[in-house]
């Protein structure tokens, strides 16, 4: 097995190469055909942000069942209702986008920063929060935001801060820790940011896309917002598609669009599909799968194609997941290291590797400060299930006869 640099890993973060497409109505990606929306073009495209009260926001979010777009898909209305009536300290926009494949938040921040700012500032005014903090990792996104802020006067303390680009550093509480001047690791106790967030004060934190959707929702109202998508969770969603596809990039679609439609649209090779990124699941089949939360998580779709060795690909990602642990919690540090070893042994036909992997996969979920071990276990467990035939072929000692092409992008490669 050899690892070949694929187009997928060479494409990497190039801003100019950031492609986007739309199936159905363009909402959060509206007006981007001619490039970045400055304030003037933003206002021409979207119109001004209406001033709404906190109750308006709660009602709107409840009516359209808006869910957070960072992966956990928590209902936004519940998050708002959990905040105390007074003393909300900050609205935090999590733009760290630490999923290596995801491009949607970067796209929004570099091309339509005012829409995200409208959503965050509008909500901050409604909540009477004195601070808006935007955590970003991408330098182009930070520049775009700073340029956008010079064009506006929101009468709020708005700050753009850089966060380190490690997977676990994008976790909500790790982001809060960085914003407070600490290290980018999740703290040991699970407390809700709505209760104890920025400087232990009530904080509304969500993903970049959530704020863009909020800005759209405030303008369209619940009825206008619900004119497309599922009845249970209307509106649109941003997806990032990559891997063995002809047209990778970000796609805006109505919620509930069939996965096959998106795969066809992007020109995906037939083969297994990973939904929800490297904390997500491999799908046993794509027929009849509708793209909705919580399954789509942060909207990442990866097509594996049929020319590469699935187990080899998964092992590369496992090694990357291991390297992305914050290194704080024993079960994550030792468990992920053991799993990398188990998968490597399994790939070369050692059946003991399979048994060890099964045991270790049962051992790590729920035993960490954040959900990294849980997500990694979910990804690897589904791989063993979906690639069952392939696993058998490897265990028979002959291997699958395919090279590891590196279709699944892994930042920085693996050691």
């Amino acid at each position, binding site marked *: 097995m050899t690892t070949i640099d694929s187009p997928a890993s060479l494409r990497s973060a190039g801003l100019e190469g950031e492609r986007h497409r739309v199936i159905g109505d363009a909402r959060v990606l509206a007006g981007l055909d001619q490039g970045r929306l400055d304030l003037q073009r933003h206002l021409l495209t979207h119109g001004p942000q209406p001033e709404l009260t906190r109750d308006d926001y709660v009602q709107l979010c409840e009516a359209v069942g808006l869910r957070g777009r960072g992966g956990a898909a928590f209902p936004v209305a519940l998050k708002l209702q959990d905040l105390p009536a007074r003393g909300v300290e900050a609205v935090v926009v999590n733009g760290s986008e630490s999923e290596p494949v995801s491009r949607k938040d970067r796209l929004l921040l570099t091309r339509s920063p005012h829409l995200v700012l409208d959503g965050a500032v509008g909500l901050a005014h409604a909540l009477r929060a004195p601070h808006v903090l935007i955590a970003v990792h991408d330098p182009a996104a930070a520049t775009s935001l700073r340029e956008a802020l010079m064009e506006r006067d929101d009468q709020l303390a708005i700050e753009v801060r850089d966060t380190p680009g490690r997977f676990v550093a994008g976790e909500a509480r790790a982001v809060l820790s960085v914003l407070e001047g600490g*290290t980018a690791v999740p703290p040991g106790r699970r407390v809700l940011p709505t209760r104890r967030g920025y400087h232990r004060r009530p904080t509304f934190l969500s993903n970049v896309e959530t704020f863009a959707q909020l800005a759209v929702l405030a303008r369209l109202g619940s009825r206008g917002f619900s004119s497309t998508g599922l009845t249970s969770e209307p509106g649109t969603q941003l997806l990032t598609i990559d891997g063995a596809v002809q047209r990778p990039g970000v796609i805006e679609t109505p919620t509930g669009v069939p996965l096959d439609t998106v795969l066809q649209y992007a020109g995906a090779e037939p083969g297994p599909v990973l939904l929800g990124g490297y904390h997500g699941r491999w799908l046993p089949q794509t027929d009849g799968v509708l793209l909705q939360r919580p399954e789509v998580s942060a909207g990442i779709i990866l097509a594996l194609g049929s020319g590469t060795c699935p187990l080899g690909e998964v092992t590369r990602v496992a090694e990357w997941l291991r390297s992305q*642990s914050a*290194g704080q919690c024993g079960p994550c540090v030792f468990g992920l290291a053991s799993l990398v070893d188990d998968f490597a042994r399994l790939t070369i036909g050692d059946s003991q590797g399979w048994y060890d992997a099964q045991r270790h996969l049962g051992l790590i979920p729920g035993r960490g400060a954040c959900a990294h071990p849980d997500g990694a276990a979910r990804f690897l467990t589904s791989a063993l299930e979906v690639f069952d035939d392939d696993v058998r072929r490897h265990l028979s000692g002959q291997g699958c006869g395919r090279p590891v092409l590196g279709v699944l992008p892994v930042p920085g490669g693996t050691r």
Partner: protein
Amino acid sequence: MRVADGEQGRLMTLWYLARAAGVVTMVMFTLSAVLGMVMPGVRRPERRFWLQYVHRSAAVTGLVLLATHVVAVIADSYVDISPTVLVWPFGSGYRPFAMVIGVLALYSLVLASLVGAARGRLAVSQSFTKHWRKLHIAASVGWLLSIGHALLAGTDRSTPWMLGITLACLGAVATAGAYRLNNATPKTTRAWRTQ
């Protein structure tokens, strides 16, 4: 004459008790400190558990003897030390500087013991767990003051056996400290540092 002799004897008993309690207090807290410093190098659970047990027992015994020492010294009429010395150690009639050192040592040892005892109860508080070790060690540094107190105030300070005990205590803690610094076992998992 005989009555007076008995009176004198009882007074002296109190004085001897005060001195003896003082010396053993120092030894007990030394033992506790040494075990506390050696402990992080011990990974075997059973051994660690017993070390904890002896560490705590020594400290509790030390506290009881410390109380005895203080009460006896105050109750004794041989030297003039009033109860107010516990609050305001300055201006004691008997070796004022040594008294100041002694009272400060008492404060810090009591504080170290309280912080240690509060461990289980306050484990629910995140900031307590974060600062516990620093607090406990900082308070324990007061142990040095008790050695100073022994060297300055002790009636037997210049006798060879007392000097021997005091120096042995110092030596034990110094050795344990050196052991701790050289055998610092880092946490098996280390958080990624960004700043």
